């Protein structure tokens, strides 16, 4: 089982959203991590065949993305999508199932099964327009899974889920990744930290890093420091080091930053986490807890 993405490029009028990305995905969970506008959605849309690439190809076991057979192996949860507000959750799933070519009997089985798995069984007959954002998101996940896809593309699947659902969902995904290719995008680091076997970091349309959590973090392992310093030192550090976190304390400022060696007196090296790496790369968005 192999999903091959070959020099995939998408250029909007004056903006390159995806820039010659080549990837080979095998069974497992892939976490696509990148800030807003980095091209995650564009990449996923092309993998799902709903956006025509400027150039490049996508193939699954040699089958082109434009073929029915490819779509038959695909499950897709778009980032931003709509439902038919007048349909009930159950009818909506039956509709999606018939689009996916399930027989009527199987459609009913699968619809009930997935409504149960995403915890919507008791509201199955309610119109979708009465659903909350998180309920819709869960319905979206259910529809993606109806045809038991070999390729599962989830664009920000945890957006709008409460912490309990989020955890439940993470567990679900890691189970699903056993015998299929799961690609999920997020900008919430903790979503992928535990479940993704491979993390892909995307910036400006390119995959700038890929590997397992440990491999990826090793880039900054031993280079993350924390210190509490006065305001003069704070200015100096901000000017010279990638800052991950700043917190004003009563008379001092607490900093978490990346440095090759100890940046100042009293700085302590701490274990790196994925979030450090993320902020290190995308450090325009420094966190400032007040």
């Amino acid at each position, binding site marked *: 089982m192999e999903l091959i993405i070959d020099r995939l490029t998408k250029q909007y009028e004056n903006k390159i959203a995806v820039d010659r990305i080549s990837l080979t995905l095998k069974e497992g969970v892939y976490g696509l991590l990148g800030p807003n506008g980095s091209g995650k959605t564009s990449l996923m*849309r092309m993998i*799902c*065949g*709903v*956006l*025509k690439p400027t150039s490049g190809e996508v193939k699954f076991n040699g089958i082109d993305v*434009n073929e*029915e057979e490819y*779509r*038959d192996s*695909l499950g*897709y949860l*778009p980032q*931003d*999508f*709509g*439902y*038919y507000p*007048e*349909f009930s959750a159950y*009818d909506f799933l039956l*509709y*999606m199932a*018939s*689009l*996916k*070519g399930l*027989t*009527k009997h199987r459609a009913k089985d699968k619809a009930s099964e997935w409504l149960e798995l995403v915890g919507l069984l008791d509201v199955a007959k309610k119109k979708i327009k009465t659903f909350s954002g998180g309920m819709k998101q869960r319905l979206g996940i259910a*529809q993606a899974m109806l*045809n038991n896809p070999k390729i599962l593309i989830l664009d920000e699947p945890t957006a709008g889920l409460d912490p309990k659902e989020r955890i439940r969902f993470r567990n679900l995904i890691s189970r699903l990744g056993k015998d299929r290719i799961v690609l999920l995008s997020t900008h919430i680091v903790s979503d992928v930290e535990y479940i993704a076997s491979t993390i892909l970091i995307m910036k400006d349309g390119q995959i700038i890093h890929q590997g397992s959590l440990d491999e990826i973090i090793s880039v900054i392992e031993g280079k993350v420091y924390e210190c509490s310093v006065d305001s003069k030192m704070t200015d100096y550090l901000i000017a010279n080091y990638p800052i991950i976190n700043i917190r004003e304390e009563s008379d001092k400022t607490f900093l978490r930053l990346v440095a090759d060696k100890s940046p100042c007196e009293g700085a302590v090296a701490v274990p790196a986490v994925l979030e450090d790496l993320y902020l290190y790369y995308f450090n325009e968005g420094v966190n400032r807890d007040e």
Partner: protein
Amino acid sequence: MNSFCELVKFEYRKILKKRSTVIILILGILLTAFSCVGPLMGNYYIRGEVYESNYEGMKKDREYARGLSGREINSDLLSETIEAYSHIPIVEGRFTDTDEYQQYARPYSEIQYMIRKVYNIDNFREMFSISKESLDDFYTVRQSMVEKIINNTAMNSAEKANSLNLSRKVKTPFIYSYAGGYTRLFSQMYVTALIICFICSVCIAPLFAGEYTDRADSLILSSKYGKNKIIHAKLFTGISFTVLLCIVLTIVSFVTTMIFFGWDGSNSPIQLFLPLSIVPYTMGKIALMYSILILFASILSSALTMLLSAKFRSPFMVVVIMTVITVLPGFVNISEDVPWIYHLSNLVPARMFKLENIINIFSIEFLGLIIQPYVLILSFAVLASMALLPFAYRSFKNHNCI
């Protein structure tokens, strides 16, 4: 096949689940039925006083016409008509307001109309100077009038020959009959067709564009049948919806009209309604032909709606454009002087709805064949619909989700 039916079923459900659709369908049926009997509303006034209600008037005219039904239109009947009209005194205002008209002439008003058409006169008083011989030769006069009109058109000689030939097939003499139901239907069907078109454009416009605005396009297009079967199902839904609606509203128009105006006249020649028409058909046959043409013209209009629906992002835009396309050509008058422009203009769906564009004196030479306007219009509607659908198909298939 099974999954296809299943998909079609869901498309219908999407259409019918909208409350607006149900409302517009009910309103459409009521409006159609109501407009059929529209001319029966209100009263006829003579010198500011109610003389009779229009409904009574229709019943009276029908009574009179039925009294003459079955009679051959010949010099006896024509002379009787002229005699009846000679009672009308010269008055200011409408001659129909005189007691003499009501008493003597009114039963003959349709025959009087026919005489004026055939002898090419504007005022009924000119009838009095038609000679006895000329009245005896009614059908010869009529035929030469028809031929004169044909020869005065800008048709080429082959086309003229064909129209002349056809006109000579009209069976004479005509047997007079009441046919108020059919004549009412012929005027009504244009309105019915506009209603059909409007409802179709409103209900079909969301077929593709609605998926874009509902943002369900990415779900559909990434599913197994999203780029083939579902598009076929949608196109089938659009066409079958149009066909069903067309049948329903045509039946509503037909039945309502016939119930109120009377069922008689289906075997009478169309010439009782259009005295100079060259087509040798009965009212019933023309009504059938007219309905079929409206059906295919509506299908063409729906095919266009579906193409726009697949192209545009919003169903509302589609409805606006289709309304303009449907209503506007009705107001434009195209000269018959350059036949091909005239014939071409009659291929716009809205103009296909007009009986006078379907059945007229023209023959058309096209690719070496000589055909009647209704053949051209029907063929065009079928071919153009079939040509538009693949574009709609491709448009949706290649749609980029954003």
